[in-house]
């Protein structure tokens, strides 16, 4: 009922575009994702994809799609900063049983990136552009805490513009098993031959470490990397397929490193053998707004991930300290 009322308000309010910039479509059905007005069939030209290390979104199930304009390809010359053609569109649909929102990223004709979210009506027949400031605590009985927040466009930028390119889940590492198909289908061009012959994987000491570093890459690396604005923190959790010993660089920036943030019990970003003394794990487990990591986009702890991170830290020996 409340979602229906909110949906009506969004329709009435409308969202104006900035001067000189075309307005974002008011309805999801006008963004080019669906083949039918009922929004049940995705257009055949739109490609579904699934990153191997997904972002935690409080347990929401997600579907993702990308579309590049006909006759264009993504340029993979720079293996960690793919160049997406103008007109590229990406969608990510979030569901807790019913569809709640679909996030949308578009590379405009002038080369800039735009971010939006479309909120689904309770009956699933429409999805309307959310206000730029987002929507806090939308009542969704099936979501954790029965509440769901739509991000503000500034929140979108905070995460997506901390990385070399704003597209986070469509990359050489994330789509490692799919690279050959992407090249064969001409979605991707200029991928270095080495990556085609040997699809990239995180060079870790064991499968647990590989899974842990992959999780940190996907959930933290878009901000915590060594070439974005947070490079000043000297903590990189992003894996670079174009860099030798990338995993080693990640480990050197966290294992046994004190860091700046102080939290009760924490002695290092990652204290070998001691998850309970590792600031990284303590902040991931917290949902205090002043401590939690990530600071945006989640209000529920990923318990499965905490188990993984805990097992990985326990497996580290003291000699691995910096």
């Amino acid at each position, binding site marked *: 009922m409340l979602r229906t009322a909110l949906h009506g308000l969004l329709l009435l309010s409308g969202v104006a575009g900035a001067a000189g910039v075309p307005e974002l479509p008011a309805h999801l059905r006008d963004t080019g994702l669906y083949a039918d007005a009922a929004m049940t069939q995705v257009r055949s030209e739109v490609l579904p994809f699934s990153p191997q290390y997904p972002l935690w979104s409080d347990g929401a199930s997600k579907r993702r799609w990308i579309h590049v304009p006909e006759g264009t390809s993504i340029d993979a010359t720079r293996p960690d900063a793919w160049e997406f053609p103008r007109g590229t569109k990406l969608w990510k649909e979030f569901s807790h049983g019913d569809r709640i929102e679909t996030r949308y990223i578009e590379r405009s004709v002038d080369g800039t990136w735009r971010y939006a979210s479309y909120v689904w009506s309770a009956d699933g027949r429409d999805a309307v552009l959310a206000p730029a400031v987002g929507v806090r605590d939308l009542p969704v009985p099936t979501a954790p805490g029965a509440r769901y927040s739509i991000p503000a466009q500034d929140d979108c930028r*905070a*995460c997506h513009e901390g990385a070399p390119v704003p597209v986070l889940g469509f990359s050489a590492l994330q789509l490692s098993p799919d690279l050959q198909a992407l090249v064969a289908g001409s979605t991707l061009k200029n991928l270095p031959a080495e990556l085609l012959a040997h699809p990239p994987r995180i060079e870790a000491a064991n499968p647990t470490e590989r899974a842990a570093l992959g999780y940190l890459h996907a959930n933290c690396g878009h901000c915590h990397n060594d070439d974005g*604005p*947070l490079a000043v923190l000297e903590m990189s959790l992003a894996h670079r397929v174009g860099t030798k010993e990338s995993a080693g660089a990640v480990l050197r920036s966290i294992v046994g490193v004190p860091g700046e943030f102080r939290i009760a019990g924490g002695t290092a970003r990652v204290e070998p053998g001691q998850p309970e003394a590792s600031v990284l794990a303590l902040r991931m487990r917290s949902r*205090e707004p*002043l*401590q939690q990591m990530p*600071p945006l986009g989640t209000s529920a702890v990923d318990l499965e991930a905490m188990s993984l991170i805990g097992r990985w830290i326990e497996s580290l020996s003291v000699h691995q300290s910096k």
Partner: protein
Amino acid sequence: MYSLKMFVRIALVVAASFARAGEPPAAAAASEALARGKYLVTVAGCNDCHTPWKLTPEGRKPDMDRMLSGHPEALVMPVAPTPEQPWQMTAAATNTAFSGPWGVSFTANLTPDRETGLGKWTVRNFTETIRTGRHLGRGREILPPMPIPMYKNFTDEDLAAIFTYLQSIPVVKNRVPEPRLPAALASARR
């Protein structure tokens, strides 16, 4: 096409600007930004909260020996008294720690110390912090009474000038405490 007269006029203006500043254009621009930044930091009241206040024979005033170094690390604040409504906020005598409905906030070290201040920051870090009201533009929210809703309206040029000035002031090593949530909220969110 420029006439000879116009060419001479332009040349004279350029020469005069060099002579006036006595330095090349880039240095003059940097000098201007520094002066502008100092002016903005002064009139925007940054010292009111980011410089610890001390008692002097003339009354309480900012301790400029610790200019813009934030809440003193050595000053551990006890739990603040709960004010009687409609009073809402409690401030430390240094005017660097504030307790209110948001919890307890401590003013940041704005000096260019690399470990405890802004020494490693870039102008982008600074601009994004003020513009978004989030630490480094993407972390935790900056708490009251920092007037983010007003300061986010600074132009990029003004923020760059402020940052230029802040990077020029004396280094003070002072690690400011992390902010605290209200006790009830903190226990509920753990």
